[in-house]
């Protein structure tokens, strides 16, 4: 049955090809939107986690002469007509100070570690060389983005205490996974712990996916008459409703697979643009394999489910679309439920989430709108 479905999907002529291309394009746009939004959010969060930790380390505080740690004093250097450079003055406190991420050791007094972009600009003469000898390069763990201008200068303890009384002691740096700038698209890993904005990402995705649904619906309508004739002919030849669902699901899955491929190619291309613009490190835009897999698999699955559920009249009537029957009551019940659900969501938004924890309300709204989008994907072909 699957083989027959594949043959039917591949032999539909210009109309079927146009429908396939439109649906695949729309699904591809949807998948790209989801991956770009989620990937961009995750990348931004990873980036800001590092810069926040750099500017205000979480393990910093007051100190005494008996402490072991690293005196840490970040500051922004702004010279006329030059970009801002972040300078982190550090001095060892005790015999065994913690080593900052992105370095192989604490810079000795009078030496400087610089970011790659800062080194490039110094060598190009567009930025004044820092005081002290450049002894090495800061790794990406200390940078927000590849073009960050950051340097870490080593100080004598007494000199730094005198120069910056506000300097804090960093007792330790948080444990992080190795920052491997491997350039691969995917890796096994977890979401950043600070992904508290996920409900709003889902909400954004839901809203952005609505126009995509219009495209999917438009695609489904291309060549609809010929398609209905084919489905009716199959039914007349003895295909059961279940077999019809399998056949059309295969056709939908083909469009979904093509859409997933389009989406992934688009995401890889956009990712490359973002990296070439030095906006992100490769690793920042690396998503967990499981999640990307889920999103990519969702394309064919939703398209197959949508096609199978959209069989409509012709699925049960071998005479084709010419002999319509009244709309069944069941669909009206679903319509009422859908409207009630939308009213409920609007109610939550309109009442300012009274009586609900903000995070819970955000999740309800986000999941609710995502549910509406999924519902529209499933019901879309019936509506157009």
């Amino acid at each position, binding site marked *: *049955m699957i*083989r*027959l479905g594949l*043959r*039917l999907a591949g*032999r*539909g*002529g210009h109309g*079927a090809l146009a429908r396939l291309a439109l649906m695949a394009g729309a699904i591809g746009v949807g998948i790209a939107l989801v991956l770009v939004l989620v990937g961009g959010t995750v990348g931004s969060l990873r980036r800001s986690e590092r810069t926040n930790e750099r500017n205000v380390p979480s393990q910093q505080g007051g100190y005494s002469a008996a402490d072991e740690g690293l005196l840490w004093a970040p500051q922004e250097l702004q010279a006329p007509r030059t970009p801002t450079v972040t300078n982190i003055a550090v001095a060892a406190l005790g015999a065994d100070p913690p080593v900052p991420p992105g370095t192989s050791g604490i810079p000795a007094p009078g030496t400087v570690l610089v970011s790659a972009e800062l080194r490039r600009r110094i060598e190009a003469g567009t930025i004044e060389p820092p005081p002290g000898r450049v002894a090495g390069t800061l790794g990406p763990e200390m940078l927000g983005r590849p073009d960050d201008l950051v340097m870490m200068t080593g100080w004598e303890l007494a000199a730094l205490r005198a120069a910056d009384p506000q300097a804090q002691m960093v007792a330790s740096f948080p444990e992080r996974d190795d920052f491997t700038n491997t350039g691969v698209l995917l890796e096994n890993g977890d979401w950043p712990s600070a992904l508290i904005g996920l409900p709003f990402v889902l909400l954004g995705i839901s809203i952005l996916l609505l126009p995509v649904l219009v495209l999917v619906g438009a695609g489904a309508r291309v060549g609809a008459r*010929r398609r209905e*004739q*084919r489905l*009716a*002919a*199959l*039914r*007349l*030849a*003895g*295909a*059961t*409703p*279940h*077999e019809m669902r399998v056949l059309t699901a295969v056709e939908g899955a083909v469009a979904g697979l093509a859409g997933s491929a389009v989406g992934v190619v688009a995401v890889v291309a956009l990712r490359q643009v973002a990296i070439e613009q030095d906006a992100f490190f490769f690793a920042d835009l690396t998503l967990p394999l499981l999640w990307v897999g889920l999103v990519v698999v969702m394309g064919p699955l939703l398209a197959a489910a949508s096609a199978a559920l959209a069989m409509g009249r012709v699925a*049960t*009537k*071998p*005479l*084709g679309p010419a002999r319509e029957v009244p709309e069944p009551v069941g669909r009206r019940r679903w319509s009422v439920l859908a409207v009630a659900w939308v009213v409920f969501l609007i109610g939550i938004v309109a009442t300012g989430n009274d009586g609900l924890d903000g995070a819970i309300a955000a999740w309800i709204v986000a999941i609710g709108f995502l549910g509406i989008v999924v519902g529209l994907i499933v019901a879309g072909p019936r509506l157009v």
Partner: protein
Amino acid sequence: MSAPVITGHGLVKHFGPTAALRGVSIDIQPGEVVAVVGASGSGKSTLLLCLAGVLRPDEGEVHFRGTRIDDASEAERSRLRRSDFGFVFQFGQLVPELPAIENIALPLLLDGVSRREAMTRAAEWSGRLGVDDVGAKVPGELSAGQQQRVAIARALITGPSVVFADEPTGALDSLAGEEVMLLLAGLARAEATAVVIVTHESRVAAYASREVLLRDGAVVTRAGVA
């Protein structure tokens, strides 16, 4: 007389307020060719579709080889259409995307017969119907007569008990119509397959061994044809 292969008893069917069938009863014997004739709107096609399990009658019963089928599930009636019934309609019965040879093989493919065997049997039937030279063409590339031959081959490839033909020559010129009816009636007799032909053309009805005349959804006469 042997037991009828298919019977309809007291069939009533409404489309909205319009009564298409008003208590029609009919028996079809194995291997006989029955023409259901009548004016346009007399209920001929509705009767055929009720007997074939495509439409469910509002009242009455349809039995196939003694088993009631009008209350069978959609899947059961689909399987009947696949294995025990064949269909030849005026148009729209072929899958437009598939070449003629695969259209002929379609019921076998749906039935899980291996592709190799299905195509072999389809090739045999396309030869019997004289369309073996157009097997690779899709229906849109075939003449109306060739399409009907392909449809007949598809209807007979499973060795059905009954072939339902609804105006099978309606889209053909008289010569092509004659050829199609000769093939349909001849092959059905050779295969001992009963044929129910709905037509308003007397020359088509002449191929039947019996005529059933419908008027306003009711049987007027049942007549044997000499």
